[in-house]
């Protein structure tokens, strides 16, 4: 059965198969993306605007702010987890994942 993905409640969370699996409010680390001038950007995800898939990875578009320098950007394609054998496995926000960082 295909995985159902959607953004709900004013972009507050991502629903995966009718469960709230990825919330805003977490601080994610971006090391490979030029989100701001910080070497590693610690980005508060403020709102999601879209959710999609790339291969088995679930990706989100949204708006975030670096909690160190204050730079705010829209981003797209942030990997937030994988669907493995039909079930969603979220990434922890505090890992550095060069391969699944978004474009800004």
């Amino acid at each position, binding site marked *: 059965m295909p995985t159902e993905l959607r953004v709900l409640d004013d972009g507050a*969370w991502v629903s995966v198969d009718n469960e709230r699996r990825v919330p805003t409010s977490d601080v994610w680390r971006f090391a490979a993306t030029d989100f701001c001038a910080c070497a590693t950007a610690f980005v*508060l995800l403020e709102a999601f605007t879209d959710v999609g898939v790339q291969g088995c990875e679930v990706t989100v578009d949204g708006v975030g702010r670096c*909690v160190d320098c204050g730079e705010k950007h829209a981003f797209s394609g942030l990997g937030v987890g994988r669907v493995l054998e039909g079930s969603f496995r979220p990434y922890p926000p505090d890992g550095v994942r060069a391969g699944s960082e978004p474009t800004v």
Partner: protein
Amino acid sequence: MATDVEEWKAEVYGTDIREHVERFAEEGWASIPDEERDAWFERFKWYGLYHQRAGQESYFMMRIGTPGGVLEPGQLRVVGEVAKEYATGPVSNPEFGDAWADFTTRQSIQLHWIKVEDIVDVWDELESAGLSTVQACGDSWRNIVSCPVAGKDANEHVDALATVHEFQREFKENDRYRNMPRKWKVAVTGCREGCGQGDINDLAFEPASKDGVDGYNVRVGGGLARNEPRLARDIDVFVPHERAAAVADGMSALFEEYGNREDRYSARIKFLVDEWGAEKVRRVLEEEFVDFELQSAGEGFRESYSYNAGRDGDGHDDHVGVHSQADGTNYVGLNVLVGRMGVDDVLELADLADEYGSGEVRLTQRQNVVVTDVPDEDLDDLLAADLLDDYEPDPSPFMRGSIACTGTEFCSLSIVETKNRMVRYARHLRDTVSLPDEVEDFHVHLSGCTASCAQPQIADVSLRGMKTRKDGEPVEAFDLGLGGGLGENPRFADWVGERIPADEVPGAIANLVETYEREREGAETFRDFVERHDESDLEDLVEPEETSYEDPMMHNTKRTWYPYAEDDDMAASPAPTDGDGVPLDAATGDDSAPADD
């Protein structure tokens, strides 16, 4: 392309939802099909039910709409009884105990920890007292706000309550507008002080006269959410009382027809007013949605608006304290810190209202309560009641001015913990910071996110949930704004302090107050003082620092199942539970996946 929400609404919405809720209540939480939960929980909102955040599955927030904030005699007692029986969660809140009622900035009441199995019983009890949860959330005609002392105030221009009741009958007690593109917030003001806060509503009726006829001027497209605050725009329309409902009907139909259904982020009518301009809104309303010629705006009272204005003057900034009613009795406004009252206190307040007033209690947009119809001879006894030690009619300005939204305790949208933190802030400021003696009002509005449920942009000090890093670790924080307020010249706060760690906010406020006291000119209010400075100066005035204030909720409270539980880890959550509160599924292990596995 239609959004999922629009598709769900097209299938089942409005009063058709009720029979499904009744079925789920009878058959239990597990009967809600897994693959339909997003759809059902979106629909439930129309009936005032909001699924609590992740970690609290199977529990709901229930919102009760009280038109104009009026709780008729007997209704508050039922709210207290219902809260005591059904709104008790798995663990206590350290400040508020096992159960409570939240009084909101839209004069509504919110109960938490309601189980789906209990919803119908709760509805039965509420409805037997004339209370309703219909259209309290979702894409609907939300609770109609008004002057909380409409019909009682000795100085009001018109009694807005008659209009509120007419709107209630026409638009709330049916599903005539079952398919609005987005929420629809309506304010009716009848006083000369602006207590309805029409400027921040989608549709505002403001007191006015024209050619000797009393009625309302109409404004459209106000709102605070999503970092896109707007003041309602003047569409140059005066409407006499008897035609107010026709104009409300026409504006609702206009929004229903032309509101954006493709993008929920841009669906509120404020964006349509941005796009069209006030003149086109007026023209389309007249040409397509009313069958009479609209009159141009009448003479209003905006120059005397004092509510939540932060100015020096005779008018009310709020309704706290003892005030005369037109009929010779009095109303007594009691401060409810952050709008939350424990159930035993709710029931005691109902007793006091019965004993010393008419039994009626009203709710204000500043999250406070008003006991009405108190004769002069009973005032002293009411004021001497023990309950008023905690819900004071003459509180410290910091206690009186504090407003907070629900926050991460229950809300999916919030970034930070709010209510308990605001309680701690207010008490700390009361105990350690002094304002000039004559300053009675100092408004601090704390909102957990940009949804702005605590109306942060219209306060002396505006706080909006954020994160920062402290000692290398992400911590809860706030952006700080200054200069907001309503009144004759309403304006929104400028966000002059960013990402202040939550434990340094009281220090920042203390330093602001100290500068204000030292540098104010004459009897200048804080808002006047702020307006005398430019943004760069104000940024320099915000000096966060640690003080004796301690904050136990600096960690990521959204990632707890309940921030105040002894074991707050998500895995320790008892949810979802059955109707008796027994966990349904203990198998909630860590299923996270590192990206590189």
